[in-house]
């Protein structure tokens, strides 16, 4: 049964709170050790109670799973481990019944080398699909392009023993890049998107978008031809599926990201990659400078567009968008153990990064949910799950969801050895200590706190839609800003320090307003001519609604 979510205007994504989850990791309904769509469906009540209103699913397509599903071998089906297309449809309906939108991953840039398209392409130089990928007789082309996975790949070219020539890959060598100069490829990828849109998905997170097109003597990123491809997809989307959304994964500087919004005719949303590490840096430095500076460098985007903010995701905490000095500081601060480092990032979850400090976890979420953008929460971070750096690559942050303190953490009834990945078992973050059931029972658990703050976030459109004005109090440990949307004004004040702070805020523009703290709804003194004095405990933050009564 197809159920449409309640219309919330064309810009529903601005009011969204996204929950990122991999089907495999969430709940195993059939006892084979791997999460599946039926399992995810069974947990939709949990997500509804949490307060999120959009789910972003990582790749669930048939795949050899050499890159956690980002190596797709069939775009029109569901990986058998996760269920069937029918299971997906049921899950989709279940989500929509709960007013939860579903965003799915779409890996446009490359396929698996096991994909039939690539198998055909490599089979013969004369094959009709030969030109669906980027081939060369040498490995010297596009020499100015960087290598993304420099820990594992030496070149962006790989020699194919079958066709005895080289194919282009910006990621792993088992992920050949599609050739977007070929109109047939562009048409087929739109067919893929159309297939899922017709099933009812609400949007796509488009993976690795800067790399779609290659040109000689460039770094092969963010090229005009790539933007043209995206514009074409967007035009078709708007014409045929109005109200659906495109979210860009483009790990770039803000100025380089801005073109992906174009005139509001490319992406609806894009992840703000440079902000994320600077939030961690700001808290560690106890200084708002990294955060305010990157947001000042962030250009205006069209009114219909939105930034997508996140603290953690399925990848490493990327440090690409940092200077060498900043990167070194982040590594020394958050990844002293070098095994925690991967590529140019840190492969850890939120709670371990913040040393399981509840105050810092709350503060980071407070900023995530009050800075301009749509927040994305990585599964398990709402209960403070840990990671396992002994698992290779980024698998340490992709372990099974911890539902209970019992068998397999309530994730699966199978033998532990059959789980797709071992559960976190250490004394601090292991499933006996950190799980949904126990946090449900505790009023002040992180999970229940998350439910409360998400409810407060959803009580207003200001955070999703409003403007921002930084206040710059003389106390640089305090990050303070005013968010405004229509007649509503909210003041957010964050103490980035581990010590109590006093701060004087220049609120003269809001003279006469009463401050109402948004969690307890208590009133604070009226704003006057004098600086507004606030004291904040360590890592404390306030959200105040400004009211003229």
């Amino acid at each position, binding site marked *: 049964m197809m159920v449409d979510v309640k219309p919330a205007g064309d810009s529903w994504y601005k009011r969204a709170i996204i929950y990122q989850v991999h089907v495999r990791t969430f709940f195993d309904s059939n006892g084979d050790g791997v999460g599946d769509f039926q399992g995810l469906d069974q947990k939709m009540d949990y997500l509804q109670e949490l307060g999120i209103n959009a789910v972003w699913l990582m790749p669930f397509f048939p795949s050899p799973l050499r890159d956690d599903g980002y190596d797709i071998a069939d775009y029109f089906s569901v990986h058998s481990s996760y269920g069937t297309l029918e299971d997906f449809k049921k899950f989709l309906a279940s989500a929509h019944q709960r007013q939860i939108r579903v965003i799915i991953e779409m890996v446009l840039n490359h396929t698996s080398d096991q994909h039939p398209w690539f198998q055909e392409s490599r089979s013969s130089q004369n094959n009709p699909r030969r030109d669906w990928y980027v081939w060369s007789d040498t490995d010297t082309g596009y020499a100015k392009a960087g290598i993304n996975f420099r820990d594992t790949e030496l070149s962006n070219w790989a020699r194919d023993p079958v066709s005895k020539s080289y194919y282009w890959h910006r990621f792993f060598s088992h992920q050949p890049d599609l050739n977007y100069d070929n109109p047939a490829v562009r048409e087929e990828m739109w067919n893929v998107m159309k297939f899922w849109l017709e099933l009812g998905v609400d949007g796509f997170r488009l993976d690795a978008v800067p790399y779609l097109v290659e040109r000689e003597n460039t770094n092969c990123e963010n090229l005009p031809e790539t933007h043209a491809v995206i514009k074409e997809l967007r035009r078709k989307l708007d014409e045929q599926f109005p109200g659906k959304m495109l979210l860009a994964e483009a790990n770039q500087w803000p100025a380089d990201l801005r073109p992906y919004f174009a005139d509001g005719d490319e992406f609806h949303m894009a992840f703000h990659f440079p902000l994320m590490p600077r939030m961690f840096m700001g808290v560690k*430095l106890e*200084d708002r400078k*990294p955060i305010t500076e990157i947001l000042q460098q962030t250009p205006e985007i069209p009114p219909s567009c939105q930034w997508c903010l996140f603290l953690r995701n399925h990848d490493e905490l990327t440090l690409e968008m940092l200077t060498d000095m900043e990167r070194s500081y982040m590594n020394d601060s958050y990844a002293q153990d070098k095994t925690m480092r991967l590529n140019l990032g840190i492969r850890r979850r939120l709670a371990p990064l913040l040393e399981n400090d509840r105050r810092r976890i709350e503060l980071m979420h407070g900023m995530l949910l009050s800075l301009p953008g749509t927040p994305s929460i990585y599964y398990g971070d709402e209960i403070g799950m840990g990671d396992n750096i002994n698992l290779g690559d980024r698998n340490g942050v992709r372990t099974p969801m911890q539902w209970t303190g019992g068998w397999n953490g309530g994730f699966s009834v199978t033998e532990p050895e059959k789980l797709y990945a071992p559960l976190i078992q250490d004394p601090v973050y292991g499933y006996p200590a950190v799980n949904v059931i126990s946090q449900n029972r505790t009023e002040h658990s992180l999970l229940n706190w998350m439910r409360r703050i998400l409810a407060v976030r959803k009580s207003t459109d200001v955070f999703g839609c409003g403007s921002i004005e930084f206040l710059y109090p003389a*106390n640089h440990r305090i990050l303070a800003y005013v968010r405004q949307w229509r007649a509503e004004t909210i003041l957010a004040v964050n103490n980035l320090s581990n*010590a109590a702070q006093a701060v004087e805020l220049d609120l003269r523009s809001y003279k006469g307003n009463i401050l109402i703290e948004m969690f307890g709804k208590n009133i604070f003194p009226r704003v006057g001519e004098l600086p507004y004095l606030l004291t904040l405990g360590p890592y404390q933050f306030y959200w105040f609604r400004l009211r003229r009564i």
Partner: protein
Amino acid sequence: MKKANTTDDSILTDELLRQLINVGEVDILIGLPTHNNAKTIGPIVATIQTGLLALFPRERAVIINADGGSQDGTPELVLNAAIDDGRGRSKVSALRTLPVISTQYASSPARGTALRSILAAAELLRARACMVVSPESTQIKTEWLTTLVRPVYAEEFDLVLPTYSRHRFDGMLLTNLLYPMTRALYGWRIREPYALDFAFSGRLGSQFLAQNPWQDETARSGSETYFTLNAIAGQARICQSFLGNREHVERGSSDLIPALRQTVGALFSSLGPHADLWNASTGSQSVPTTGPEVEFTLEPLRVNRKRLREMFSAGVAELESVFQAILSPATLDELRRIAQLEEALFRYPAELWVRTIYEFAAAYHKSVISRDHILQALAPLFRGRALTFLVENRSGSADEVENNVEALCLAFERGKPYLLELWNGRE
């Protein structure tokens, strides 16, 4: 920067307190005592900023300017070093903000009061390492941040004092009195007990602040010397770091009395409170030093020896009655005798100089006359000793100058029992 009211029992203005609240805890505090230093302060502050960014990029730092009411824009020049968070003020690439505070302390310009404000700020900000830089130290280099601050910040030293490459005739009060007497009394070979560029731990700063030595006028004007002597007395961990060349500053003869108050006055004042310590101390030992302990340069320098000689002789004659209260008859007789010598034969011997100084110290302790008069009376005698030092080292090599200084130090050490005798006999 503006001058604001203080409460009755606080040395901090309300405005300064507000700014300190905004800064919060810091790892490193740089103190700049200033008064009308616009001609020199700009490059000094720029060097400090560069040094902090290059050598302590991750540490929480603050620059505190304690100003004595400059009218030449000095505070504004200091404030330019601030690194703000993106309001277009700073073009410097830095991990964190660098707050700069300029405050005008309440009383009239005095380095002691400035130091007190800096110490108070350091305590309130819980600074781990503090560095004070003279606004005249135009020879400052970014490396000073390493040589002065790092021993405190990373090696648990409490006080880092400078050593310099000096002209052989620069700092003669230091080489002829402060260094040898401090060494003889307290047992540590500290070359610059009156330091204008130095670093200290927050712990030492707080201890000194708690003693509140500023009640005493001498301590107020000679607080840097007092600070060093208190650190010695408190058995703080002290080391020395070589800072390179210290430019020779021409001083007028009128500068000598204030210099005596700031240095010798503080040294003499310290003897009473720390009598048990220096009474028990024998011999001397070196302190850990990075780089050379001292370097003398030998460029020719014009000195009016005739005038020095005249001032000495005139002083001995005019202050006869004062000296009678301070000095023993034998010492005074000897001074009268050398005052009569022709210029070519004039010599103020080390042993006599040591005896003179010890008798002055004892008289100062006993307050036989006004203590300030005692210090002022020392001025002509010092000029006589300076003349002798000039003559003895006129053509000497750097090693020979250092040997002469060392010989004087040993004379002070040998003469120490005489001071003990005077001290304990007159108590």
